[in-house]
């Protein structure tokens, strides 16, 4: 097809013209470091006795509409030590499911979002966020209220808050000095009140001397020449003739003191010789600042030791497993949907909710044609 060929040529030209550049952050709350081959550090086996807790969460919409969203949320964590699963000591539930109802309201010409949450089991209650923290102004959240994208983002708030809260509990009840907690994703906050939960989790980590880290499956960071940061660093490996099987590129950037939304040292890591890509990796800045480079690389080594599973080489096994258990699958949604729909029907509300669902569903129906 001619158009495809032409687009491919444009893409090729664009890529070849771009220089690698240096890490770029649009706001001034980061100190970034120019790309330099001296920042590559070889990662060896750690031979460490540390426990590592892996945390991930997932959510899916049961009842969609432009003005409200009912979601099934799930948080999962597991702990490993010496490459073996570590049995939990505290009785804390390893997987927590809860339902959330997010809706938008107009008050004094402002649009607000509120979220009600209900645990699937009562014993999960203590691990869930405060509903008051889930009440927030659309403007402050910087979302386009009334759109499905905006609703999706707000509906995921409860799950994110719960992830931090559970991380805090895991540190408190299961981990000891020198252990590591690794959450799926960045350590950056995404919502107005999220910093409360993040700070609590970080304080608990400081208190117990547990290293708080995050690994992002995807990274949208770029360089100042608008090349993908991960891609730039990987190309630098080739250009600099770096022969390390496993490496840590450190530092990429560190957040500044005033940055309340993100408190981390950012680096890029390749955790296995056979990894198809490198990942963005972060350590809670206040901890990283007290650590020597050697200590930082040892933390990376510990995580690299868990990144040998052939299912996803170079990605920590604990996060593969956490993703599996935290993911809300379509087939389980059906059960919840049926129960909720029949309950709404029993209460005589189905005739009012059904048209709203149809508005959203039309997209899916067209996609299925």
């Amino acid at each position: 097809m001619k158009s495809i060929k032409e687009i491919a040529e444009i893409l090729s030209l664009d890529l070849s013209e771009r220089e690698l550049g240096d890490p770029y952050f649009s706001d001034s709350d980061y100190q970034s470091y120019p790309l330099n081959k001296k920042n590559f550090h070889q990662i060896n086996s750690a031979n460490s006795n540390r426990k590592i807790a892996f945390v991930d969460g997932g959510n899916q919409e049961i009842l969609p509409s432009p003005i409200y969203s009912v979601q099934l949320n799930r948080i999962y964590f597991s702990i490993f030590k010496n490459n073996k699963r570590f049995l939990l000591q505290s009785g804390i539930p390893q997987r927590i499911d809860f339902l959330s109802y997010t809706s938008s309201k107009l008050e004094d010409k402002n649009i607000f979002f509120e979220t009600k949450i209900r645990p699937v089991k009562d014993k999960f209650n203590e691990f869930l966020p405060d509903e008051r923290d889930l009440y927030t102004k659309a403007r402050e959240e910087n979302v386009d209220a009334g759109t499905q994208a905006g609703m999706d983002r707000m509906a995921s708030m409860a799950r994110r808050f719960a992830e931090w809260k559970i991380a805090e509990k895991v540190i408190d009840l299961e981990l000891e000095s020198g252990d590591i907690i690794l959450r799926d994703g960045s350590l950056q906050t995404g919502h107005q009140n999220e910093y409360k939960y993040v700070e609590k989790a970080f304080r608990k980590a400081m208190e117990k001397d547990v290293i708080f880290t995050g690994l992002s499956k995807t990274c949208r960071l770029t360089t100042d020449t608008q090349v993908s940061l991960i891609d730039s660093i990987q190309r630098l490996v080739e250009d600099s003739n770096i022969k390390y099987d496993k490496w840590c590129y450190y530092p990429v950037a560190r957040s500044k003191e005033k940055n309340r939304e993100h408190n981390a040292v950012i680096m890029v890591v390749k955790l296995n010789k056979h990894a198809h890509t490198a990942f963005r990796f972060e350590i809670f800045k206040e901890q990283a600042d007290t650590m020597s480079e050697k200590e930082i690389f040892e933390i990376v080594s510990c995580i690299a030791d868990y990144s040998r599973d052939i299912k996803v080489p170079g990605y920590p096994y604990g996060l593969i497993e956490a993703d599996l258990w935290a993911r809300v699958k379509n087939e389980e949604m059906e059960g919840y949907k049926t129960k909720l729909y029949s309950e709404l029907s029993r209460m005589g509300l189905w005739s009012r909710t059904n048209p709203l669902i149809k508005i959203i569903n039309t997209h899916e129906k067209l996609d299925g044609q």
Partner: protein
Amino acid sequence: MNKRGQIIGGGLKDIIIREKTGENLELGELLIVESASKAANKNIRDYSILQIKDIEYRSQAPQSTHELLSGMELEGYNPDLGFMEPELTNYVLGRAKSLLHVQENNNENEKDKKPGYITKSPKRLPDFFSPIRSIEKSDLKFLEPENIENSIYLGDLRSGSTTKEDVKVYIDLIKSLTHHILIPATTGRGKSNLVRVMLWSILDSEGAGILVLDPHNEYYGDNVRKGLRNHPKKDEKLEYYSPDSNNESAQTLAINIKKIRPNHFSGIGGFSSAQKEAMRMFYNKYGENWIKEVAKGKDKQTLKMLGINETTADVLKRKIETKLGICSISDIYYPDGKCTYKSNLFIGGDSGLSTINDIIEALENGKIVIIDSSKLSDFEELFVGSIISSNIFNRYKRYNSVDLKSKPVISIVIEEAPRVLGKDALESHGGNNIYGTIAREGRKFKIGLIAITQLSSVIPRPILANMNTKIILGNEMSLERSAIIDSASQDLSDDNRIIASLDKGEAIVSSVFTRFAIPIYTPEFEKFVDEYIQKMPKEPEIEGETELIG
């Protein structure tokens, strides 16, 4: 509880079990799943017996990943990759069949009573996600016979390749023998050993007389090999006949030809209808001397009077000569001809007149009679069996029901059964023989067969189906396995591979008298006898007489 695995899906015929790592489930293994729903009632134990029918590898990782990893390792790439928690990623699934549902009632209010068992064909599934464990002796108490004296020991329960020596498997003596037993197997799978163990057990029982036609002379035993002669009850319950007059252990098997009747040849020896007709004409005319007269030969005139074709008479004479070894010579002293007997088996004069009767009496007295047929031809062996069987059949047939009830069941052990029960044997030369008759109607008169064969497929289906107990040993031939499976008392349609993989001594007992097809291992006869004798109570030693002095 030693958890071997967990039920994760399937149906009654195909319950899927995830094996616990390292538990190594085996084909044919018996497993127990307890019912949680009944656990509330502590007096009732409710469980199902499952049997593994197939085992396969499974993995959470795609096959291509395995192939890649294997390639890296094989080609020496030192991949630094593998499976974290391999026991969760790669595992084994077993497919099992639900064999039996058991309810054990231990009601405390009935302390004096033994636990009661209700066994049912499985009609519902065990609880989803239930753990499974190995079978134990206590799970099989319902198999224990009420009266061991009226049972035949077949072997020990087998679960996969593990023999449960503490769980003995018996079948009811009277029922199983009258309803016939089939022992199908290829050579070297332990048929003779099984029969020897069974016969040994029958010597301990009451109520059965067994005629054993022993073409390899392997059941009685000798100075080198153990046999039934080593049984403590051999003097009262065992008789041994051999045509070999040098065999000192045996009574001489000699049958006076006066005891032979035309019907004894029925379906045996390949006689045509005309020849059989001629036999009857001779018998009608000459009575018990009819064979002698056939051997002497008759002139045309006499044959015409008898209504027998001259050629038919010639062929009959020749066949009698070759098959029974009887011929006639005429000389000046015996112008009418004198019979000579080539073998010691079929004789004239006054000898051997009581042999058949003696054997029948022994059988009627509940003894085992072994006939060493190792030196007999095929025909001679089957013919001797036919004479004895016909006589006993006719005798039992004449008993009224009250008398018959008090008589022991009689069973005839016949090796290479298709010789007399095969389609060819039953369909050619006009037909049925006494063995076929017994297979079809012997049950009514308490007479049965223990038929041993390598080729079940040549036995007609109705007869195969009439063999209500089948002790199935290993068989490599697919056609044979199909014939056995199709006529088994239990649904063995999934057992094809299990039967093919049976090792020497391993068998499956499929019977209308067992609640499920029971896997067994029959111990080696010599070892079995040694242990039996060791366990026997020792007779107290008689102290030397005290001599009184003074």
